[in-house]
């Protein structure tokens, strides 16, 4: 039980730290990294549950979910990074804040 608690606590901490990072960083790449930390937290939470079934064998369903989740996250990350690079190419910046100037022109 303690193991589960430790890892679950770590997981929620990671999620919160990731959220914090997501919120404070104006820079796109740091936002995306923070999102990946959040994802890591969510995955760790699921896996700590998988471990905690009492039986010697680990619950396969959360593991399968996390495998799926990892693929989804890497796809999303790659897509977001591609967008960020394109924005950099177009505007020379890598921030979300220059929006107003653009919409007016």
């Amino acid at each position, binding site marked *: 039980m303690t193991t589960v608690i430790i890892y*679950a606590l770590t*997981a*929620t901490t990671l*999620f919160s730290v*990731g*959220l914090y990072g*997501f919120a404070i960083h104006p820079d*796109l790449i740091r*936002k*995306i990294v923070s*999102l990946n930390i*959040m*994802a890591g*937290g*969510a995955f760790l*939470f*699921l896996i700590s*549950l998988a471990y905690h079934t009492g039986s010697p064998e680990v619950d396969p*369903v*959360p593991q399968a*979910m996390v495998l*799926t*989740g990892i693929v*989804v996250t890497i*796809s*999303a990350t790659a*897509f*977001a990074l591609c*967008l*960020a690079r*394109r*924005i950099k190419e*177009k*505007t020379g910046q890598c921030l*979300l804040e*220059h*929006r107003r100037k*653009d*919409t007016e022109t």
Partner: protein
Amino acid sequence: MPVGAPPERYGNITVPELLILIPFTGAILCFLFPEVLRRLTGLLSAALIFSNSAILTRSIFQDGARRLHLGGWTEPLGIGMSIDGLSILFILLTAVVGLLVSIYSASFFSAAQEQVLARHFWPLWLFLWGALNSLFFVSDIFNAYVVMELVGISAAALAALSGTSASLTAALRYFLLTMAGSMAFLLGVGFIYARTGLLDMYLVGTVADGGPLMAMALGLMTVALIMKTALFPFHFWLPPAHGEAPAPVSAILSGLVIKGSFYLLLRIWFTVFQNSTVTTHAAALIGLLGLIAVIWGSYQAIIQTRLKLIIAYSSIGQVGYLFLLFPLIFMTPDPAWKTEAWTACIFQAISHGLAKAALFLAAGNLIQASGTDDLRSMRNIADKLPMTTFTLALAGVSLMGLPPSGGFVAKWMLLQSILASGQWWLAAAPILGGLLTAAYVFKILSQSFVSDDKKSCCGNVSFVMEKSALLLALFSILIGFRANEVIFLLSEPVFFIIPGGQSP
């Protein structure tokens, strides 16, 4: 009695799975085919999906809700799909908007400079359509997460379609927020699994009780979905994302995609958490946010000067109405009025979806004709594009909630249940919101009554584009006459649970 899995009925031969298979097949084919064939494939798929949706609607209407077990594995082991009155309404909305938007796009993207866009539009749009359809069938919380990601990526890619720096930034902002929401949702799935060890919505619904784990899960999932639906404090991503995309994409995003996450929110609140104690404070808070959204969004719409931005801000306001449902359901004692509030909300979602899509398509016509969507370019269009002006007017009527449109039916029922529940503070939404809506709708329309001598107008707009926008606007009016059918679809025999304890 708590409501578990719905009965399984196989009295007929309709195949709901086709609604997922056809768009996905279409998307793959569009991706593999050379460009000349893509448009044809897209239109063909759209027509097929539409006809299948219609058939399925009829079947649900006659035989009631359905439950599928994918792979032949029953829950909790496998993934289920559920098709009930609620999902079929959204499926039908998607089918109608989707078909007309597809027809519109076939013409919209045919201009030479747009062809490069068409190449990417068709596969992404069909993927999105398939993802939306599977979202409306969803009955498993982890599956919901995957589907949402599918919706999110394809929607963000579509939002970036026009490739301007503004649209790219808007798309990325939207996507990052969606992704953060998905993470929160996934963690919420974890919390639910930690409490119940289940993933199927209906099973969780029957087992789940209160407790910190469930409360946390509810909180995380609600915030996640609220972000994706662009409720008030999280609304900032919507106007640029919807305003900068090409017209058919805006129509899809505003009309359908935000409805998808709202649909999931309904499922989470009223299926997954049907028995756990939801605090009335949380519901009231959401209602308050909805109220603020109605007023703030409409106000912002009034002060915009670009047509598409007005329409986009209007989405924030109109979506706010949907969230009034929560305080109404959880703070109203009388089940009859709960049902009414419920119907009002769904009606609002549907009529807004139709009207908003029509407005964006009409805005697309305007842009194609005059090259800009500045409100001043609307002068003279009454002569050149009477059909488009008419579309704007009809859809505007529905948004304002004037009779006999769908929006009217929604606001009518909404106000009625607000008054019946005695929560007076909520009445500000339909009344004040209606006034503000009228203000920006007439801000648009009054321009078309001005003839300008400087004839900057007009390029030609194809017949198909004008007609498909007009049809959508007409539907948004006519749905007001079909309230009975909608109410029936949301009623007991067809719908799994009626929120508010009217279940048998």
